[in-house]
């Protein structure tokens, strides 16, 4: 059926290149693995079911939900995935919504602004750039801008972080057999002491190495994500060694790219524990822009720590299925 229907615009080989096109916009190239592997089956199924207008893509793509069964639509997604002839690309079924604190395992192309306001009114904005490298890796650079809670306030750039992440294990999962998708990635954060630690009390004042492991899976319709990280300062008189552990559970309220996703994180650093209930919302038709907000509520030492407001604004600017041409 690919040949009779889809190939009319997407070509027999999935490249979207045909001799006498009947549409004015050249379709996406499904032989490009970074396009065909990056997002979950559900996103592609919705694009076929609702057509371009339903997912913020070209209105020239018709919807098939009134003419095909869900099984037939899933079959087309599997066929489309098959146009990527290279092995080793992590399957997009492991690309779960990003929690606010927990580092997700799937490599991403995105730009984020992460604001945070602590109970004593320390304000931080982190600009974070993430870009995929090759099939399974990613690097990121984050630059924080901090306004301290001291009197008078000190404002300045905090410690710049450079991180690298590599997916070591991934399993696409199989809805038919009930096998959940699974992904595990290893990474390392390097914290550069660019903040004025001595003068303003911003930043750690020492280099930190932060090796971490991130993992994700699904349980029924629930996203489960976790991260374990060591924070290892070079100069232990300036910063403490720490063990950081984050776990997230959440679920979408619909299959639409602009769905609401409700979740909660358990965030731990040494003996300090917090719960961070949060809500995420896709802001555009393709979900290329999304925002999340949460409240980090301490579970111990409540008086000293208080509630911290956290969140992000995310732009998947390089993701082919999201960033419309």
């Amino acid at each position, binding site marked *: 059926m690919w040949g*009779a229907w889809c190939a009319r615009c997407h070509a027999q080989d999935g490249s979207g290149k045909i001799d006498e096109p*009947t549409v004015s916009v050249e379709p996406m190239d499904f032989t490009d693995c970074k396009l065909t592997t990056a997002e979950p089956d559900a996103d592609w199924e919705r694009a076929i079911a609702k*057509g371009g207008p339903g997912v913020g893509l070209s209105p020239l793509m018709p919807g098939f939900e009134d*003419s*095909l069964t869900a099984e037939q639509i899933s079959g087309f997604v599997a066929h489309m995935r098959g146009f990527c002839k290279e092995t080793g690309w992590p399957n997009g079924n492991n690309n779960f919504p990003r929690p606010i604190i927990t580092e997700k395992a799937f490599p991403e192309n995105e730009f984020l602004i992460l604001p945070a306001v602590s109970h004593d009114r320390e304000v931080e904005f982190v600009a974070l750039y993430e870009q995929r490298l090759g099939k399974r890796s990613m690097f990121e650079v984050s630059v924080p801008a901090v306004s301290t809670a001291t009197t008078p306030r000190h404002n300045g750039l905090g410690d710049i972080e450079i991180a690298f992440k590599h997916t070591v294990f991934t399993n696409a999962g199989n809805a038919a057999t009930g096998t959940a998708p699974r992904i595990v990635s290893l990474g390392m954060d390097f914290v550069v002491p660019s903040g004025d630690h001595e003068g303003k009390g911003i930043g750690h004042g020492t280099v930190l190495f932060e090796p971490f492991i991130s993992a994700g899976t699904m349980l029924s319709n629930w996203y489960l994500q976790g991260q374990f990280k060591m924070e290892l300062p070079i100069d232990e008189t300036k910063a403490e060694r720490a063990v950081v552990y984050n776990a997230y559970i959440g679920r979408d309220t619909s299959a639409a790219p602009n769905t609401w996703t409700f979740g909660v994180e358990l965030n731990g650093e040494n003996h300090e524990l917090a719960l961070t209930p949060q809500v995420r919302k896709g802001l555009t038709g393709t979900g290329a822009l999304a925002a999340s907000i949460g409240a980090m509520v301490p579970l111990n030492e409540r008086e000293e720590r208080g509630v911290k407001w956290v969140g992000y604004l995310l732009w998947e600017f390089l993701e082919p299925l999201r960033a419309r041409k």
Partner: protein
Amino acid sequence: MGRILALGILGTLACAQVAAAQAGSITGTITTSAKGTAPVRVTIDQKVCGNELPDEAIVVDAQGRLANAVISVVGLKRSVSSETVVSNEKCRFGPRVQLARPNANVRTTSKDPILHTTQAQTENGRTIFNVALPVPGINISKPIGAAGTVRLNCNTHPWMRGWVIVTDDAAAISGADGKFTLDNIPPGTYELRVWHEALKGAPQKVTVVAGKPTEISFQLK
């Protein structure tokens, strides 16, 4: 109680008959000096579509009488009550031009054993819906949206074109002989507008009198 109800119904019927007797009608002919365009050469799905199809953008007979023009009576509310059905047959939308009331469901259906799509677009190019018709016998109903001119495209057969005029004004479409009839028009003076997908004509004022047809003709350019 039953007698009161029966009397009420009789009274309503009587009123309706009086109203019909007092109403007038508007008839006329649409003409043009424009010529029909050359047939379209089919380059795909020739087994189903044939090698050539008429270009129906301007359907005009030897006397210059023009089909598929829509004449509407501005402000005279009268919704189309019948269902609007778009058929895909031998790679043509049929009928080429139709009426629908605002927010009505428009049904699209295919008789061809090939993939058609029905993309409905507003005048400013926004897509109202785009549905695939991959197999013959399928029927899909979708809301057509607010009043306006809706263009229908098929994304697999670029020559296919249809129009749905979404209006709650009284309206009629000229036939193959260029003639149109608007029945049951209460006496009064109205503005008549004419729409055609490729040609234009100026609106005209018309005064309808009770019990007889009023003749009016449009010349489109």
